[in-house]
């Protein structure tokens, strides 16, 4: 059936909005990139006598893509530093994961599939599995898998297409990429091609590609509906990577003015936020080994160390000794800067993969503090490990998903008792405000706690009944709802009354448009993923970041 085309008047300006991924305003001619559909050699099945040949093709394709990624690592290291090169290192690790190759070979042998069909089947299975994960970080990896799949198929069918020209395209007109998926290689290949921005239908804020866009200063917007449309192939485009605004002109007019209405970093022209002297920018980390990156970013300390991800990375419940080594290394690396260690924030999606490493049944419907209260032996093991690092620096313990003051008191007494017995009585104890009930109980909680931290991601979910599957655009919209701001203000007022420090973390914390509001509410510190620290410091303190460390 012929495709019905939307009728658009040539002189009309089409406005759209997506999820802002990387700050900045970009404008240029649209460059529509459609996922290539390789021709020839695309047969699905093969004769069993060709199994070895097809396996060889897969191995060869992985080899080529691996070297292409190595080139990307070298380029990014030169342009944005080793921290961002790790994005491609992560891609390479997935590519070299032996189980992926094993599965592809198994598909070839059991289904008589060609290399092409086997790669496609395996990666589409992985994409679906990760795409359905309730773990946000897992879903963000789908873009990487699409990148690897497409890279492998290119390596099989059109290998020379993988080898982009690194030379700057002098004299080329400014262009804005429009693509189905935002992938790291797409971002990297934009180098030297006069790319002023990227618009994508799919691509998460924390995806590797988005991180790379921010590192390289390429404005990007995702979740843009109906953007990969041939009618836009000859349009001019402008995007605002801070607000998500997009404008297109079929008459090829300059549409930059149409996206300059929002609050943007680019528009601020170096305008500094009115920040109090004591405002701290902390780094969120998932693994203790990220401490060096946190220090390199200029963070004032670690504002959130998500310890459960350390367990997940190890693929098991860590012993006290294993935990103690990680916590001690982290605290020593931070050399006196504060380290907020969040106790295990267990949830079904996080614990499921390592459940069988426990020699007993546990109730995986419990989350955060409920889980710690139900399984005190696991809490005691972790508290003992933290206490062993307690005297090596400034260690603060954060209690996740606290419901009320009663629950906090019970858990704190256990941890404080262990800390005292271990000779580390200096540990501080803080509440993570993620449950509306805890926010309503904030005065009572601050009477018991040494500090507080608002986890905006879960608070948003609880207030608006969102799930981890909720589209990023809707979460973005809810983060501007007065209700969430009322809750944040309520906790901030309680913290001020009790004279206790309060940190804000979660996605909202890294959004430039919200920073002044947080400061105006009296928030003492902002904790963001370490990759955002530098940018936030520049936004608040000016181009040099004016790094200050608190001891």
């Amino acid at each position, binding site marked *: 059936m012929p495709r019905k085309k939307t009728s658009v008047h040539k002189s009309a300006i089409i406005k759209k909005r997506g999820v802002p991924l990387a700050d900045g305003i970009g404008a240029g001619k649209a460059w529509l990139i459609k996922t290539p559909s390789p021709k020839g050699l695309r047969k699905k099945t093969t004769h069993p006598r060709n199994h070895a040949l097809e396996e060889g093709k897969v*191995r*060869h394709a*992985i*080899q080529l893509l691996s070297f292409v990624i190595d*080139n990307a690592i070298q380029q990014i290291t030169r342009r944005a530093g080793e921290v961002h090169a790790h994005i491609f290192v992560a891609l390479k690790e997935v590519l070299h994961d032996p189980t992926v190759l094993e599965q592809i070979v198994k598909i070839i042998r059991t289904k008589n599939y060609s290399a092409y069909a086997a790669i496609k089947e395996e990666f589409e299975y992985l994409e679906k599995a990760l795409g359905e994960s309730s773990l946000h970080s897992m879903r963000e990896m789908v873009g990487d898998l699409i990148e690897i799949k497409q890279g492998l198929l290119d390596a099989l069918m059109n290998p020379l297409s*993988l080898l982009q020209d690194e030379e700057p395209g002098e004299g080329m007109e400014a262009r804005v990429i429009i693509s189905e998926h935002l992938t790291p290689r797409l971002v990297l290949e934009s180098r030297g091609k006069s790319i002023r921005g990227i618009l994508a239908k799919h691509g998460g804020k924390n995806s590797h590609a988005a991180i790379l866009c921010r590192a390289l200063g390429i404005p990007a917007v995702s979740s843009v509906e109906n953007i990969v449309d041939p009618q836009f192939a000859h349009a001019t485009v402008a995007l605002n990577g801070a607000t998500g605004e997009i404008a297109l002109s079929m008459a090829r007019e300059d549409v930059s003015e149409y996206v300059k209405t929002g609050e943007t970093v680019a528009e601020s022209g170096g305008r500094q936020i009115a920040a109090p002297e004591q405002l701290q920018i902390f780094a969120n980390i998932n693994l203790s080994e990220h401490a060096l990156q946190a220090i390199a970013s200029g963070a004032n300390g670690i504002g959130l160390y998500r310890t459960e991800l350390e367990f997940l990375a190890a693929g098991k419940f860590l012993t006290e000794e294993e935990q103690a080594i990680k916590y001690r290394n982290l605290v020593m690396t931070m050399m006196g800067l504060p380290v907020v260690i969040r106790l295990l924030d267990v949830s079904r999606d996080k614990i499921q993969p390592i459940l069988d490493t426990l020699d007993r049944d546990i109730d995986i419907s419990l989350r955060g503090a409920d889980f710690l209260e139900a399984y005190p032996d696991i809490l005691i093991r972790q508290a003992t490990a933290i206490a062993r690092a307690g005297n090596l620096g400034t260690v603060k313990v954060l209690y996740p998903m606290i419901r009320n003051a009663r629950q906090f008191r019970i858990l704190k007494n256990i941890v404080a008792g262990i800390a005292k017995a271990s000779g580390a009585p200096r540990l501080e104890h803080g509440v993570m405000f993620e449950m509306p009930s805890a926010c309503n109980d904030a005065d009572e909680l601050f009477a018991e706690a040494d500090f507080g931290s608002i986890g905006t991601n879960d608070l948003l979910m609880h207030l608006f009944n969102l799930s981890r599957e909720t589209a990023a655009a809707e979460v973005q919209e809810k983060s501007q709802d007065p209700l969430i701001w009322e809750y944040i203000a309520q906790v901030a007022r309680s913290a001020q009354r009790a004279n206790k420090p309060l940190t804000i973390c979660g996605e909202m914390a890294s959004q430039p448009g919200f920073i002044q509001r947080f400061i105006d509410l009296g928030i003492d510190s902002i904790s963001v993923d370490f990759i955002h620290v530098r940018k936030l410091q520049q936004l608040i303190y000016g181009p040099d970041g004016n790094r200050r460390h608190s001891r």
Partner: protein
Amino acid sequence: MEARILIVDDDAALLFAFNKIFRNAGYEVDSADTIDEAKKLIDMHPYQVIITDLKFDANNQTGGYEIIKYVKHKAPETITVLLTAFEAEDLSPGAIKPDFYLKKPVKFETISEIIHQIGIPRK
């Protein structure tokens, strides 16, 4: 002696990518996409390491061994690395063996480590 690496593969894309990462990593690299071209280069330059693919085309399933045999005859001290995407142990004609036999996919770091151990200086 000038420190030099020769990479031999009939796959243009792989040869290009291979060449580039080694050059970017600071090595002096030559490349050849045919057995004859590789032999000519071996005649012209002393190489400390030769990295070669095993198969060259459908008619030459063990061309990599031909290169290894040639270089071992001309310059026995040259370190040879054979890369293959296929099972190749049984294909080795006679007693010719590469110093390193690596099955694809091989990480760049693995090859780099071999070269590092040999002690080839970078440019």
